[in-house]
């Protein structure tokens, strides 16, 4: 979902005229059409009017404050500098005395970031030098023009306002009445006038920047000179195009920079419409301050310059200094939290369609999966399941007995997701609407009445999710006795939460609509996060805080990772869209959102059989694995394309299920420490420049490399296997390949090129059943891939799969598997935890092994027994038969 029906007519007309299938760019603003962006972009570098008033400097235990003055208009700003724990610096700039408070983004940081003291190293009339503590890091404040430089040793890591593009439009009293701005037929009253902000960052030595999702573009961000900047503004873009910087459904204002020496991050905490300009200046022509001249002798240094522009709010930037990718992930996680740990089943396969028509249809599709022996865990219901698009209700004819339907799924240990969108039908006979209206919970229009817009149900109100009382009430609507027909195996999907307003400017809410005292302009990009948050809290509350929620949302912001999954919205059944799913999810992974996926098969249009099969094969190795289709497309359940293709899709889905233990462990890590599940290669091979712009392949965790086939009619792919001196094993054939090479792999339609890193141990469940719940107690097979030094390490994480007991009561198993000195052992990684599993180890497959004379199993109680084994000399694969040990206990296998 979802297209915008009300604009369908127009678009259809446009489509007829142009004869092409594409986004209607005319519906969305360019920088030139966005007044503040145009104003800001017109500023020329090197003419900064800002000067630091060093005499105002104050240094406390937690921060440094300093006033800045704009010499052109004498307006003063207040700069606050913080040194944060974990190697981060926070820079806040606000008006010293604004006419009225400017918006500061709440609810995104998980706490007030703990600080560390700054100390003054030196001070003169040109500026001050502060110590950032470890690694001889210094922060240099230059007075005229104002700029900040962060240095480590003799190296400049990053400079602020080095190009002089700091610009802070101070709030003014309406003077000339010319503040209105019109786009197409919509007028933005802009009652507060111009209020935009901007700041530039220079990154010497950096050629690669990533992140700032959501854009349908390459992983490595492109220079924006000569085109539009990357735009961050949550929008429902109908039939979006790939490879352009247009805004999409979500916005995470976080950019990562990477070079072979260092990885850093910039988190621009602002929820207003934002544009990001990137220019890559490898000639290093930026002029540095006098104090730095001696450092930068060379003008050859590559450099990337970045400029952020936002429509309102304040400048609040977190500079994450790395230095490794892992460090940046941890730093960002310490600010905005980590990925919600999903129920295990949510990592399995999801079957969706707009729409499964009625209960009989649901039952038939469910049965279809069993008849064709394809596993699935969730079946989804889109908007047509409701009574006239009134969310929390059921169509009385099509879904007269939802509990019977849900019970039917429960009997098969399967689940359902129903859609609950944040636009509420204005209908005095609709309980939800009446309550929101009577409680005054709707977003207000600039005139103070309830804001109304057009969406699926027709005329709709938009609950003000920024209001905590509203969110609490919304959450309570998910209680089993409130949401009639719901059951514990029913979860939620929040679509259209940008919010989508079919008849609004750029298909979203008017910027002068009011959320309490704040305009939508100030917090637009935050709305979607609040919707998903309130829904996730509802699902938690309905179970008394016991069960983990699962909520999918289309719009998101920094911090959304805490509340569930996101997907890349309304893509299309085209090869280009299959390809772009990889960089789109990688970009999200880098900025905290690991639970990402694209509609398998493509939402709009109908995929060729080959494309559908390739998409299943790709999706099986992406975090959120859901097939979805537009209402107007022909049915495409996996068995509708002949037995050969059914078998291909079955195999792809089965590979997903077999690998669920590894996926679960990766998500545990994402939740626990903020490390992404899906990773660009450079994250694990930060010095390998060959990997820096790669986005046709990726890593899952550290240990699996996936190179999906995304070319039509492909006969082969060239995968890059990184790591000099490392080896990789084809997970299907066990063929060993050397690292640091481009490997040509001939492919057939059944090929999914996946490699396991030599030196890793991956647990799988070989007994694939019809849903992940059915596999709960099944035994594990361990795949031990030896490094050239005959070493390997891996993990296993087990818990009940669906409650918070892992967290609240430490009920989980976390094991460390190590292979060294011809012995494989399992040791407890979490001595403080406890959990009992029925699962056991049924098989151990050692890749790159030599033939032992015997294999001895020692169990936790000291008993020894001999294991039978098979050795495949041609592939050097040793298979140990049935160790039979419980997966939660200590054991060792010694090879002699």
């Amino acid at each position, binding site marked *: 979902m979802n297209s915008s029906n009300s604009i*369908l007519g127009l678009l*259809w007309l446009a489509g007829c005229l142009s004869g092409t299938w594409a986004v209607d760019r005319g519906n969305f603003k360019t920088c030139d059409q966005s007044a503040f962006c145009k104003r800001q972009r017109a500023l020329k570098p090197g003419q900064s009017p800002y000067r630091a008033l060093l005499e105002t400097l104050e240094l406390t235990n937690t921060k440094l404050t300093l006033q800045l003055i704009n010499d052109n208009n004498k307006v003063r700003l207040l700069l606050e500098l913080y040194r944060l724990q974990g190697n981060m610096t926070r820079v806040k700039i606000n008006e010293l005395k604004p006419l009225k408070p400017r918006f500061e983004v709440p609810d995104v940081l998980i706490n007030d970031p703990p600080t560390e003291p700054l100390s003054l190293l030196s001070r003169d009339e040109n500026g001050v030098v502060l110590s950032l503590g470890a690694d001889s890091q210094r922060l240099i404040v230059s007075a005229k023009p104002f700029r900040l430089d962060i240095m480590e040793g003799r190296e400049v890591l990053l400079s602020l306002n080095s190009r002089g593009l700091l610009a802070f439009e101070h709030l003014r009293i309406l003077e000339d009445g010319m503040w209105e701005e019109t786009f197409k037929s919509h007028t933005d009253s802009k009652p507060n006038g111009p209020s935009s902000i901007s700041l530039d960052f220079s990154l010497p030595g950096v050629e690669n920047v990533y992140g700032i999702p959501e854009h349908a573009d390459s992983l490595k961000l492109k220079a924006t000179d000569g085109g539009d900047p990357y735009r961050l503004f949550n929008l429902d873009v109908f039939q979006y195009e790939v490879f352009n910087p247009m805004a999409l459904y979500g916005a995470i204002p976080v950019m990562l920079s990477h070079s072979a020496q260092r990885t850093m991050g910039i988190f621009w905490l602002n929820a207003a419409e934002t544009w990001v300009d990137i220019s890559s200046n490898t000639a290093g022509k930026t002029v540095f301050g006098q104090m730095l001249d001696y450092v930068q002798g060379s003008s050859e240094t590559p450099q990337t310059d970045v400029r952020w522009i936002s429509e309102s709010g304040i400048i609040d930037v977190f500079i994450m200094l790395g230095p490794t990718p892992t460090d940046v992930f941890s730093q960002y996680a310490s600010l905005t939290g980590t990925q919600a740990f999903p129920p295990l089943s949510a990592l399995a396969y999801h079957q969706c369609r707009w729409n499964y*028509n009625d209960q009989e*249809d649901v039952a038939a599709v469910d049965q279809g999966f069993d008849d064709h*022996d394809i596993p699935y865990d969730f079946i989804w219901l889109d908007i047509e399941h409701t009574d006239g698009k009134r969310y929390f209700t059921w169509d009385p*004819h099509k879904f007269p007995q939802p509990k019977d339907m849900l019970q039917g799924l429960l*009997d*098969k*240990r399967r689940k359902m997701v129903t859609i609950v969108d944040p636009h509420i039908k204005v209908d005095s006979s609709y309980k939800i609407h009446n309550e929101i209206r009577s409680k005054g919970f709707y977003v207000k229009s600039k005139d103070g009445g309830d804001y109304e817009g057009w969406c699926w149900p027709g005329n709709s109100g938009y609950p003000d999710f920024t209001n905590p009382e509203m969110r609490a009430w919304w959450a309570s609507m998910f209680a089993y006795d409130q949401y009639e027909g719901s059951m514990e195996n029913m979860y939620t999907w929040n679509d259209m939460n940008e919010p989508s307003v079919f008849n609004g400017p750029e298909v979203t809410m008017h910027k002068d609509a009011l959320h309490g005292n704040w305009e939508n302009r100030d917090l637009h990009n935050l709305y979607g996060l609040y919707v998903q948050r309130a829904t996730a809290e509802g699902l938690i509350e309905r179970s008394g805080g016991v069960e983990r929620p699962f909520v999918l949302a289309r719009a998101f912001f920094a911090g959304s990772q805490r509340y569930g999954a996101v997907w890349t919205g309304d893509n299309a059944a085209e090869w280009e869209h299959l390809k772009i799913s990889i960089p789109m999810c990688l970009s999200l992974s880098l900025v905290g959102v690991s639970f990402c996926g694209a509609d398998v098969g493509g939402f*709009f*249009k109908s995929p060729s059989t080959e494309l559908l099969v390739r998409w299943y094969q790709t999706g099986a190795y992406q975090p959120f694995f859901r097939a979805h289709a*537009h*209402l*107007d*497309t*022909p*049915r495409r359940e996996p068995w509708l394309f002949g037995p050969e293709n059914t078998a291909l899709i079955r195999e792809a889905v089965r590979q997903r299920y077999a690998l669920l233990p590894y996926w679960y462990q990766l998500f545990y890590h994402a939740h626990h420490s903020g490390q992404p599940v899906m990773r660009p290669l450079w994250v694990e091979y930060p010095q390998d420049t060959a990997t820096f712009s790669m986005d046709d392949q990726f890593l899952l965790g550290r240990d699996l490399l996936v190179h999906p086939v995304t070319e039509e009619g492909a006969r082969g792919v060239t995968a890059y296997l990184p790591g000099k001196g490392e080896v990789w094993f084809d997970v299907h054939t066990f063929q060993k390949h050397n690292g640091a090479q481009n490997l040509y792999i001939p492919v057939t339609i059944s090929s999914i090129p996946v490699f396991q890193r030599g030196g890793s141990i991956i647990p799988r469940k*070989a*007994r*694939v*059943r*019809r849903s992940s*719940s*059915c*596999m709960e*107690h*099944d*035994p594990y097979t361990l795949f031990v891939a030896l490094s050239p030094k005959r070493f390997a390490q891996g993990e296993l994480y087990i818990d009940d799969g669906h409650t918070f007991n892992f967290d609240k009561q430490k009920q989980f198993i976390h094991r460390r598997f190590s292979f060294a000195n011809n012995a494989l052992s399992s040791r407890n990684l979490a001595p403080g935890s406890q959990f009992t599993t*029925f699962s*056991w180890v*049924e*098989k151990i497959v050692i890749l790159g092994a030599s033939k032992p004379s015997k294999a001895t199993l020692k169990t936790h109680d000291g008993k020894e027994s001999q294991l039978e084994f098979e050795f495949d000399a041609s592939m050097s694969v040793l298979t140990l*038969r*049935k160790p*039979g040990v*419980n997966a939660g206990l200590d054991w060792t296998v010694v090879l002699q």
Partner: protein
Amino acid sequence: MSCALLLLLMSLALAMGTGAAVEIQRPRGVPLSKRQFYEENKPFTCLDGSSTIPFDRVNDDYCDCRDGSDEPGTAACPNGSFHCTNAGFRPAFIPSSRINDGICDCCDTTDEYNSGATCQNTCREMGRKERESLQIMAEITKEGFLLKQQLIHEAKRGQEDKQGKLTELQGSKKGLEEKVEALRTVKETAEDPEKEAKERHLKAWEEQKELLRMEKDKTRMAEAFLELDDDADGYVSVAELQSHLELDPDSDGSLSETETQVSQGQSEPPAPVETPQEESRDFVSDHDSDHYPEDYAGEEEEDVEDDEEDDHDEEEEEEKVTPEKREDDEVSMPPYDTETQSLIDGTYSHLQSLICDPECISICRNLEKEIGFDFGPSAEFAYLYSQCYELSTSEYIYRLCPFNRVSQKPKFGGSETNLGLWGQWAGPEGNLYSVMKYDHGQGCWQGPNRSTTVKLTCGKETVVTSTSEPSRCEYLMEFTTPAVCQEPASLDEVLHGHTEL
């Protein structure tokens, strides 16, 4: 722990089954037919011959055979299968992955022996239900099959009848053509300039007498149409023909005597139409569809306009053939013999119009078309032709006119949507006549043209039992008719075959 030694358990399920008298020892999940391969205490060879293992590794919850044959009773092999005896019902194989997955798959509960799932043995109940439904089905089939025989008989008679009518019509048409040819000669003669005018007058009057006789022929033909109409139960084209006979001469205005005669000859009121006018249009449309299928891609305004244009074209073409000639004749007509001349002209063009009358041609074509239809091996579906069947749902009235079209009309106002025109029989091989396909219906936005698949099942009644739209603009209709009832195996046979389980 589920690895806990799943030894060779004797098939308890068999003991529970009432019908099966003998307990036969065999490993769990092995069907009787394969028992001999699993001999206790002898090494087991995988059924694909790939390897041989000690017998204690059969059903030991570890997969040793590539074909999964060593684990018939556990979930260890990804490609294994488990046999449920299901005493009282039908035996079945299920994938090994459904053993002990917490879900009851075998009605005898034998697949869930170690999962904690509480399953009820439902085999006897299911057996009973199946027998009941089989019995009902058998009865329906039996009665349906009798009805089908009747249908076949009637279809045969109807077919012959129609063939007769067609032959007759074609003969009569041929006769008319001959007369016209004769008249043409007369006409040409009459148009010879100023030569023996009186003789020609006389001759013309003789011709007129002749003409009167021909009009009697024509009346007979009209009667033949009416007769046909009765047979075919509401043949619209006939009705139109009748009105045409009235109107067309009127417009000509020259053959008043003859016209009167024709009117007198008509024993019935002018419009004894049994079918509503709109349907008649449909019918004609259908006839046209052979030539202009693209007109039926949709019924949007554009298409309607196209239709009209096409009609125009046809009319224009016709005008080119005859009336222009007439104009030419009029120009060259000698002015002094107006009366005779107009008589001849009137008669000529009237006859010409009778022969070339689109309605008349349409009847012949329709007859030819109907006779040419594939109404099944024994024409058992012929009775559906020109019939329509409706099903009313909460929102729509669906209408199936077999061999013609499927449509949908909103119950509470709104225009009808064409869900497809007759395409072809589309059943699977060996059962071609079990599915009808209607396609080229109204187009969908960003989607295909609407189409409908009609599944035919045996029933005593001819009725649409359900409709659905499983995929956008692809409709599915269930339709029962005796015409698909197969000759029933004897009921005893059916039941016997199942009680043996």
